[in-house]
């Protein structure tokens, strides 16, 4: 299924700033450190935010985690906010890329939806710190990030709207215009509630429920339930 929201996904290589900090990071070669300072700062922020929350995070936390000087921080970012925005954008680019890739690999739309949701849940479940950063802390990080957060959620709409294509005219014509927005909002609320409560281990088990919920308006309950249970 061609991804309607994004151009074809790039190679799914994991960006270095999202990789967990290497344990022996003080011993890294200087050249590597210099090249990766920005990435390390982003990773350092993610770690600090996971521990202290956005409000409680200081530049000192970030630079300590990244093992760089305060001056280096300010060479890359003007403020904590700016560093957070960079981190948020990095996480969302990665998440969106994975969803797009999974969606693209399926021929049929119901299976593509299932694959896309599955990829999102898997990413958030395996990266609880990044999940919290992007779905919980983003909301307290000021209007700029909130706007990006809203846009990121709305960017999922076309994946579901693609389901209208296969529908008989009378169903398609009558399906209300806000259907996709409501589906996306409902899905995200289930996901973020679990992240907020530190229950990221429950995320992947949501897959069948979310598939059935999102497919029902297009396929009806019975078909949606079948697609949800199909492996």
């Amino acid at each position: 299924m061609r991804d309607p929201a994004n151009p074809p996904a790039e190679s799914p290589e994991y960006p270095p700033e999202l990789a967990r900090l290497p344990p022996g990071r003080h011993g890294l070669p200087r050249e590597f450190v210099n090249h990766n300072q920005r990435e390390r700062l982003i990773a350092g922020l993610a770690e600090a935010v996971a521990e202290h929350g956005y409000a409680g995070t200081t530049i000192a936390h970030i630079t300590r985690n990244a093992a760089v000087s305060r001056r280096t921080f300010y060479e890359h970012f003007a403020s904590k906010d700016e560093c957070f925005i960079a981190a948020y954008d990095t996480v969302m680019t990665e998440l969106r890329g994975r969803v797009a890739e999974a969606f693209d690999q399926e021929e049929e739309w119901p299976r593509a939806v299932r694959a896309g949701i599955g990829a999102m849940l898997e990413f958030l479940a395996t990266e609880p710190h990044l999940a919290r950063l992007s779905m919980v802390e983003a909301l307290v990080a000021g209007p700029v990030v909130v706007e990006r957060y809203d846009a990121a959620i709305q960017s999922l709409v076309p994946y579901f709207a693609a389901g209208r294509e296969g529908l008989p005219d009378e169903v398609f014509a009558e399906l209300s215009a806000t259907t996709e927005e409501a589906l996306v909002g409902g899905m995200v609320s289930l996901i973020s509630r679990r992240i907020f409560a530190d229950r990221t281990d429950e995320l992947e088990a949501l897959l069948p429920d979310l598939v059935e919920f999102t497919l029902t308006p297009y396929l009806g309950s019975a078909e949606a339930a079948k697609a949800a249970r199909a492996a």
Partner: protein
Amino acid sequence: MASKSTTRPLPGRQQLPREFIAQHQRVRIISALAQETSEQGYQQVTVADIVRRAGTARNTFYENFRSKEDCFLATQEFAMEAALERVVETAGALQSWPQRVRAGLTAFLSYVAEEPALARTCMVEALSAGPAAVERYEKSQQAFVSLFKLGRDVSPHGADLPETLEEAIIGGVFWIVYQRLAAGELSTVPELLPELVEFALTPYLGAEAAREVASGDDDHPDAEL
């Protein structure tokens, strides 16, 4: 500064019961917080802004609330109780569940439209007001879950519906309303009714029956249930 209010006379208030005055002041402060928050954003608002808007003394504020945060949580509680009460009152008068959902959503949307400052505070600003506020926001959504769960009894496939369905429906309804409030499109909120009714009922009744209730054509609500 803090002792100013104690010297202030309370003209004409002696006839009113003490409890009434206290409650009245509390509501004035809550309403002022909502106004200020919806105008400036939660982070910017100060206690000074709130008491100025409420026309009360700073002391009065601290007699009622420990802090801005405390006042914010009370505001959320106040608005949610009011909205829920209105929903239950309107919906409870009806027999059939689909009609109750329709009436309940009507009541909810009209509350939002009538109390834009409270609605914006509780549905938009709450998300950036710290973990306790977010938790309360989540809880307020949960309050609606049990109302929707009754739909499982009237649905032909009620037993097979996913466990999290109600949570997702309410999350979707809140998200749609949130979008309108965040965009300042308050006047369009009541117009959302048919779409939200259809969205909420479809998983239980199927699209066709849901649409019928949503459009208001369903004149004989109890005939088939």
